């Protein structure tokens, strides 16, 4: 869970400068009773260690609907989006698109990262849980938008390719409180898996674009 | 306690509608346990329903019948309101279970 799950982050305070130039500090913290309940109610099990309850900056922001809807919250969202975007790495071998067939397997699988899994479990992307992806798979969720025809509609200009890459790597770069997990940020998917999912979305041969 | 079985038998227009729910694992023999060992097949093979010692319906199951099996069948002429309907099953390990109900 890396550095951002350090215990001290639990009570992080976010300072923001108001538009008027006056230094106004908006304190946003996880309520102490919530922290206390989380601490007393959860236990480590397998790979799901207890520190997973400790929210990072994005999780603190997105857990607080009231603050999120305030001007300060919106401002904070933009700030965190910029941080997320800046941290995204382009593919190490320069290849954005892998194999769509392998990508469909990643999209189908909802496995990994639970206390029933272990370090050797190959994580899935759980894409079908929330998105319609191909016509053939009728068992798909509706939490996210349909991705049917994704590449066909947009083409594969570098702009589209980079946007899609970023969106899968860290969806929060565009929407701080997107429901979509940060697949690269938390190492949920490997670079190769992301390249394969990219191909699933953008390869003209992929069933997504048929 | 014996593994539970629930039987409902209701008469309407001369037809007795019988519904049976049984607790049974119905292991297929195709699954493996977490340590990789095959889990042996264990399933109900034969179920029969009797009224006054006369068999009125028989079902034979393979391991493809779902866990905690449900069975629904209908009798016309071989059972009537007030009769005692006895349902028994035997599984492939030779374990048996019997339960009865009055036709309502």
């Amino acid at each position, binding site marked *: 869970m890396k550095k951002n799950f350090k215990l001290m982050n639990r009570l992080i305070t976010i300072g923001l400068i108001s538009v008027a130039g006056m230094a106004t500090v908006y304190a946003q913290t996880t309520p102490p009773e919530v922290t206390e309940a989380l601490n007393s109610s959860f236990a480590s099990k397998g790979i799901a260690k207890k520190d997973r309850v400790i929210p990072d900056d994005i999780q603190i922001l997105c857990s607080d609907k009231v603050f999120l809807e305030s001007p300060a919250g919106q401002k904070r969202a933009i700030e965190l989006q910029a941080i997320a975007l800046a941290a995204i790495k382009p593919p190490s071998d320069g290849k954005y698109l892998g194999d769509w067939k392998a990508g469909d397997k990643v999209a*189908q*699988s*909802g*496995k*990994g990262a*639970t206390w*029933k*899994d272990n370090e050797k479990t190959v994580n*899935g992307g*759980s894409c*079908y*849980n929330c998105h319609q992806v191909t016509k053939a798979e*009728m*068992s798909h969720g509706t939490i996210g938008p349909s991705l049917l025809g994704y590449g066909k509609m947009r083409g594969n200009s570098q702009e589209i390719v980079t946007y899609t890459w970023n969106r899968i790597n860290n969806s929060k770069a565009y929407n701080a409180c997107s429901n979509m997990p940060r697949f690269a940020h938390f190492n949920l998917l490997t670079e190769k898996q992301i390249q394969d999912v990219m191909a699933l979305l953008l390869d003209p041969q992929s069933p997504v674009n048929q | 306690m014996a593994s539970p079985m629930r039987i409902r038998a209701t008469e309407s227009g001369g*037809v007795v509608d019988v519904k049976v729910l049984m607790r049974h694992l119905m292991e*297929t023999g*195709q699954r493996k346990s977490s340590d990789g060992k095959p889990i042996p097949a264990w399933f109900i*093979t*034969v179920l*029969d329903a009797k009224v006054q010692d006369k*068999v*009125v*319906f*028989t*079902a*034979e*199951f*393979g*391991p*493809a*019948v*779902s*866990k905690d*099996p*449900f*069975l*629904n*069948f*209908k*009798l*016309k*002429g*071989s*059972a009537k309101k007030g009769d005692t309907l006895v349902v*028994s099953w*035997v599984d492939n390990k*030779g*374990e*048996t279970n019997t339960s009865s109900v009055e036709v309502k």
Partner: protein
Amino acid sequence: MNLQRRKLMQMTALVGLMASAGLITQAEAATWDKAAFEAKSVDDVVKALGGTTAPTVSDKVTLRAPDIAENGAVVPVGVESSLPATQMAILVEKNPSALAAMFILPEGAEPFASTRVKMGKSSNVIALVKSDGKWFMSTKEVKVTLGGCGG
């Protein structure tokens, strides 16, 4: 055939043993049609059930099964017929052994039975009804979907 007969004899011997030990009554155990339940394909099941020709597709056989099953572990299926039936069966074509359940109908039992079966994947489900010594059938495809979070 030899192997099958040998298996059958072993089974009979075992059943005899269990029956003499008072575990089960001879009548209860003797009826389980091992050959039919162990047959792999639909054709082999029909043969094991004594069918000499392919079953006739008939609209007098009604198969109740869903178009989609939310979970392959539990698929409700039922068979019903307007023919005077003595025996009925439910088969899942793509299961390792096709025969899932069989029903024997003495005088006074309606040609109606419904249960729940496991399906490993999307497959044709077949209802067989024996009437006047001949087998009749009805078929329906059931799609098994993936559900839940998949974790």
